[in-house]
């Protein structure tokens, strides 16, 4: 059971993601950001709940909607903003961008812009951990859309056969881009990992405490060598598929969005728990928010001011 300080830490992490993402949207609206970005707003509890259960040297893989995973695993907002803006100081020297942030320091094997593209990679990292006796666990984050990719099943089969320490975390935010997941997903989601003998669990992805509980249990189990696991986290993205996805009426209603934002906001939910139980006062949460907002503003401005890589660098890093 985590203590209150741990919950406060999760609150901070979730809020950091929220504030980071709001600024990403801002950068886009102000035409400062090259390309697009896929915001994690609304889904913060999944990344934070799971990553709090990890050691620093544990690995994660992430997706096109990856900023939350990065931050939850401990990445610095300034280097992330820089990467999103294509600046030299970014995590990947500007070469990766929003969809490819990677960071060995925090065990981030990288975001992947191929849906399902990291399933086998994560499984391979778990293979290393087991082979090298490192006791590391790997978490593979993906959206429910990745359930459409065959390589996920190939990977789960292998992970279970070889009892690899990998936890597959399926973030079901209800939509594959603009299509409801029920139109693309037959049967029961958790029956799929179960068919391979993989331990699986469903969790309310808006409740970080619940995610943390399930996450720690399955991460510990994997670390002990008891094999892979699968978590279905039910969640919702509050914003568009990407920052440019503004008119969404044709695939989901405003009411649906409104309902999730009002009733199922993971930050509000944890906030209410913390203040309701008088673990912290609202004023303290407000201070946290102010502090984080200032930090994010600084980080963003630093990134805006940072230089682009020199054109000559384009040819570097192709081969090791």
């Amino acid at each position: 059971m985590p203590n209150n300080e741990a919950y406060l830490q999760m609150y901070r992490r979730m809020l950091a993601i929220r504030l980071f993402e709001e600024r990403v949207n801002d950068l886009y609206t102000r035409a400062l950001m090259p390309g697009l970005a896929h915001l994690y707003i609304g889904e913060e509890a999944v990344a934070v709940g799971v990553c709090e259960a990890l050691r620093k040297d544990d690995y994660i893989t992430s997706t096109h909607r990856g900023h939350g995973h990065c931050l939850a695993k401990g990445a610095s907002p300034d280097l992330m903003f820089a990467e999103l803006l294509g600046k030299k100081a970014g995590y990947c020297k500007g070469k990766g961008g929003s969809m490819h942030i990677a960071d060995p320091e925090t065990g981030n094997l990288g975001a992947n812009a191929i849906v399902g593209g990291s399933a086998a990679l994560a499984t391979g990292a778990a293979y290393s951990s087991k082979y090298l006796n490192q006791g590391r666990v790997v978490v593979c984050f993906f959206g429910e859309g990745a359930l459409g990719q065959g390589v996920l099943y190939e990977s789960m089969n292998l992970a279970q056969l070889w009892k690899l320490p990998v936890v597959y975390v399926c973030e079901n935010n209800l939509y594959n881009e603009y299509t409801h997941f029920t139109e693309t997903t037959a049967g029961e989601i958790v029956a799929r990992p179960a068919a391979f003998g993989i331990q699986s669990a469903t969790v309310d992805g808006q409740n970080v405490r619940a995610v943390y509980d399930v996450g720690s249990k399955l991460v510990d189990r994997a670390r002990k060598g008891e094999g892979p696991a699968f978590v279905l986290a039910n969640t919702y993205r509050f914003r568009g598929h990407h920052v440019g996805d503004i008119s969404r009426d044709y695939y989901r209603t405003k009411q649906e969005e409104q309902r999730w934002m009002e009733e199922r906001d993971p930050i509000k939910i944890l906030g209410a728990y913390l203040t309701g139980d008088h673990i912290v006062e609202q004023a303290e949460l407000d201070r946290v928010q102010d502090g984080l907002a200032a930090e994010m503003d600084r980080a963003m401005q630093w990134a805006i001011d940072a230089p682009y890589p020199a054109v000559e660098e384009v040819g570097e890093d192709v081969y090791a």
Partner: protein
Amino acid sequence: MHETTDTTDAPAVTVSRELTFGEAVKEAIAEEMRRDERVVLLGEDVAEAGTAFKVLTGLVQEFGPKRVVDTPISEAGFTGIGVGAAMTGMRPIVDIMFGDFLALVMDQLANQAAKIHYMSGGKWRVPLVVRATLGASRRSAAQHSQSLHAWPSHIPGLKVVVPSTPYDAKGLMKSAIRDDNPVVFFEDKMQYKVKGDVPSEEYTIPLGVAEVKREGRDITIVATSSMVQVAVGAARMLEAIGIDAEVVDPRTTWPLDEKTIVDSVKKTSRAIVVDEGYGRYGVASEIASVIAEGAFYNLDAPVTRVAAMHVPIPFSPPLEDATIPTEKAVFDTAKRLCGK
């Protein structure tokens, strides 16, 4: 410049309109769907969303969800379904969104679709169209920016289309749909908003016929897809310094109209090949070697390739911009080859 190889009877009066490249593709598909019930569209978000690039908006309204079908994110699966459906009486169009995802369907495309007709001794046919995109410079980074048309072009049994204008896109798409073979149709994402004349009367353009997009005497620039615009731009710049460039657009990389290309170079005696794929082992290499062999005795300078830089496409704008062929690069190359 648009002297096209129209295979339909020419109408007395041709009313021409401006359509975007995207609209032209959609119109071709819509016309063929009206004409032939067996034509259906399968892909991620092709229905209500009208594709991620909003190119096919409206089709589901006209043809219904039975013919414009949203799929799961299963490129290999639904491409294979397209192959099986094509064998058994349908004429499916399969949409794989970003051309990079071709990597996920190469087995269905190269080991299945391309070979079924031959392996069955001609008994089964696969009238399938696979739509894919190519082209960088959208700040989409390495996994969403590649131009992989060289891969299917390498495989016997496939045809590959790389249209450069709305007019060509429409006429070639109609031929691709009517073709009894698997055809991979590459659309440049950056071209979707580009406008061009498209007659309202029906026409098709046969696969395998190149077009001279601009006539010239001094040097031939063979260019594919959006690189045709780059070549035409370079030709304009060259005109200013007294070099008269001919621009040849193969329109399909397979069948490849070697004759038109080689004849042009025989006339001009110099050649540049511009393609947005990687130069190494790429489309530009094939066309360059066809020219170097076919026009050997007429060449006054080495055939030179201008293609994507040999790096995964970087995200950072100044870096990405450095990786793709530009008018300036083509201009400089032409100038050098012409000894000016």
